[in-house]
């Protein structure tokens, strides 16, 4: 088997005495669509933050294409080809939609911190950003400040920014949170389209989206992965039904 796109070994995280992530081993293959599900407070977002170095893990390692990411800053990890979105929309609200996407292209196109290039004069940047906007159906909104978009559009923009840099590992944190049915369908189609051939890791609550998108599912409960496997296997797993669906039922009642 080739090197996994993302490999977590013995990952733990404690905030003071509270153990949020209690030893996670997970291996996600190239071009796999992997969903992480679990009840609220299971540590899904924390896990994302550990992988992308928003938080430092207490112990354990994260490997991207076999390369250890320990001690790297978020921007360094991003440069290695891992990009993420956020649970709470995290865009540049005062800049135009177009500029949001263009900023996401700058590093990937090798501009770095240059002050001898003019962004308007780069046809590659403009066309690249427009192509992304076209993909996420926001071309008609191109010159509006991003803060003025509707919620679903902002989420789409968030995904656009996340994929724009051409990262081959994409992490989406609850991309459909707070959306109506039609908006959810729109985002699901969008995710399918833009992550073609890429490794996708997503946290999601909407089971329709999860079972529609994911090749494999991991169930995270109280900081531990209790099951990983194909959707139908996970669905049938008695431990999952007890821990996750039970908790979900409790929430509902």
């Amino acid at each position, binding site marked *: 088997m080739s090197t996994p796109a993302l490999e977590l070994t013995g990952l733990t995280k404690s905030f003071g005495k509270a153990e949020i992530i209690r030893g996670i081993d997970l291996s996600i293959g190239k071009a796999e669509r992997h969903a992480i599900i679990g009840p609220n407070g299971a540590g899904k977002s924390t896990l994302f933050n550990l992988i*992308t170095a*928003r938080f430092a893990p207490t112990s354990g390692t994260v490997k991207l294409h076999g390369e250890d990411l320990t001690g790297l*800053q*978020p*921007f360094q990890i*991003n*440069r290695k080809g891992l*990009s*993420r979105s*956020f649970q709470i929309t*995290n*865009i*540049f*609200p*005062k*800049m135009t939609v177009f*500029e949001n996407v*263009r*900023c*996401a292209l*700058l*590093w*990937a196109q090798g*501009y*770095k*911190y*240059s*002050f*001898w*290039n*003019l*962004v*308007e*004069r780069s*046809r590659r940047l*403009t*066309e690249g950003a*427009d192509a992304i906007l076209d993909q996420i159906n926001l*071309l008609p909104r*191109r*010159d509006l400040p991003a803060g003025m978009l509707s919620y679903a559009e902002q989420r789409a923009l968030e995904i656009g*920014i996340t994929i724009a*840099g051409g990262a081959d590992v994409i992490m989406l944190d609850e991309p459909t949170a707070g959306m109506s049915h039609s908006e959810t369908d729109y985002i699901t189609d969008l995710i399918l389209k833009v992550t073609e051939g890429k490794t996708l890791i997503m946290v999601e609550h909407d089971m329709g989206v999860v079972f529609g998108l994911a090749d494999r599912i991991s169930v995270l409960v109280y900081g531990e992965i209790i099951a990983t496997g194909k959707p139908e296997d996970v669905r049938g797993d008695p431990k999952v039904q007890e821990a996750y669906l039970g908790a979900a039922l409790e929430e509902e009642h």
Partner: protein
Amino acid sequence: MSDQITTDPSKPAQRMRAGSMTLTLGPWIVAAILLAALPFIFTSNSGLTIMNQMWITVVFALAYNMLLGQGGMLSFGHAVYAGVGGFACMHIMNASDFFASMPLPLLPIFGGLFGMGLALIVGAFSTRSAGTVFAMISLGVGELIAACSVIIVAFFGGEEGISGDRGEALPFFGLNFWSQIEVYYLTAFWVFISAVLMYLWSRTPVGRMANAVRDNPERAEFLGYSSRWVRFYSFVASGFFAGVAGGLFAINYEILTEENLNAASSGVILLVTFLGGVGFFFGPILGAIVFTLVQTVLSLETELWAFYAGSLFVATVMFFPGGLAGLIMMHVPPLRLGKLGVLTVPYIKTLIPAAIGILGLCSLVEMTFHYRHAATGDHEMTLFWTTFDSHTILPWIIAGAVTLIGLGIARTTAPALKEAWNDANTAGGKR
């Protein structure tokens, strides 16, 4: 560039870009012509002095806005970089052998390099985060260096500062820069070059990312950019142009003192930039022009000019956080809708009475000041070309009435203005 101006109507992006090229070139041409033509309109030496001061403030304010407006860094000690650049230029002026072999127009570059050098050192630790931490470090460093001015006398010259003679430079095409007009064109040249370079900076990848880091530093990190380095580059560039402003100051005034780098000067540049508006590139230019006029022209009329400047600043912060530039740009949507005309009459009905009322209020302030502070027995004062006795009751009644009536009318017509404003910002509507 010519290959990009070709317009293909099927590609909105290209059409947009071609349009913005003409839009961006126009103002620069107008600015260049104005810079060159103004000395023919304001020919007096004092006029030239005021304009020089204005252009120096423009460079400084634009440099400051690279931090505040574009990078989201609030600095309370930016005069230090202009001051150190200026002091370095004074020392170069006094290094007679070297100075005699260098044409004067090159001097601001050295000011810039020294400002940049200091910004490199300070920026290395101050740009780690924006917000309060950055503001506090800038304040601390500012105070520290201002305090050094009385300690390191060799560089800062103690209380009397450092003075020199710009005329000792190598003549530049026969120019010695002894006359004010020659200095004007030197200053105008540099303000134009600096403004163009700072504008272009804002269009580069690092300039665009400065905006991104200002809006959302965390997201920028997840796009491959270190927020800290983006801030650092903005800070260093800003230090360079502040130093250029300092160099121009050195050339114009031939003396630098502690006043050039103390906290008060840092405060003034914050005020100027905010007054003009941090959200637009041309905001600080407007701010510098208006503030310099208030400072020079109004200070000839009244001792209380700083009071009015302060009131103007407070009013801007409270009512027009976008500054003068924001105020102007608010009118772009009505202009696009072709409904600017809707506003004319309501503006006249509200703004003229308001202006008269405010002038009345100013009269009351001036009269109070005269009543309290004029020499004993000096009861006579002149206000708006009228001489009267400030110790009689009639002028007070008139000024009070003008204030009340002016502001009263403005108040009654304000709702109509608001309605007209809403109408002007709505497409279609009544017309």
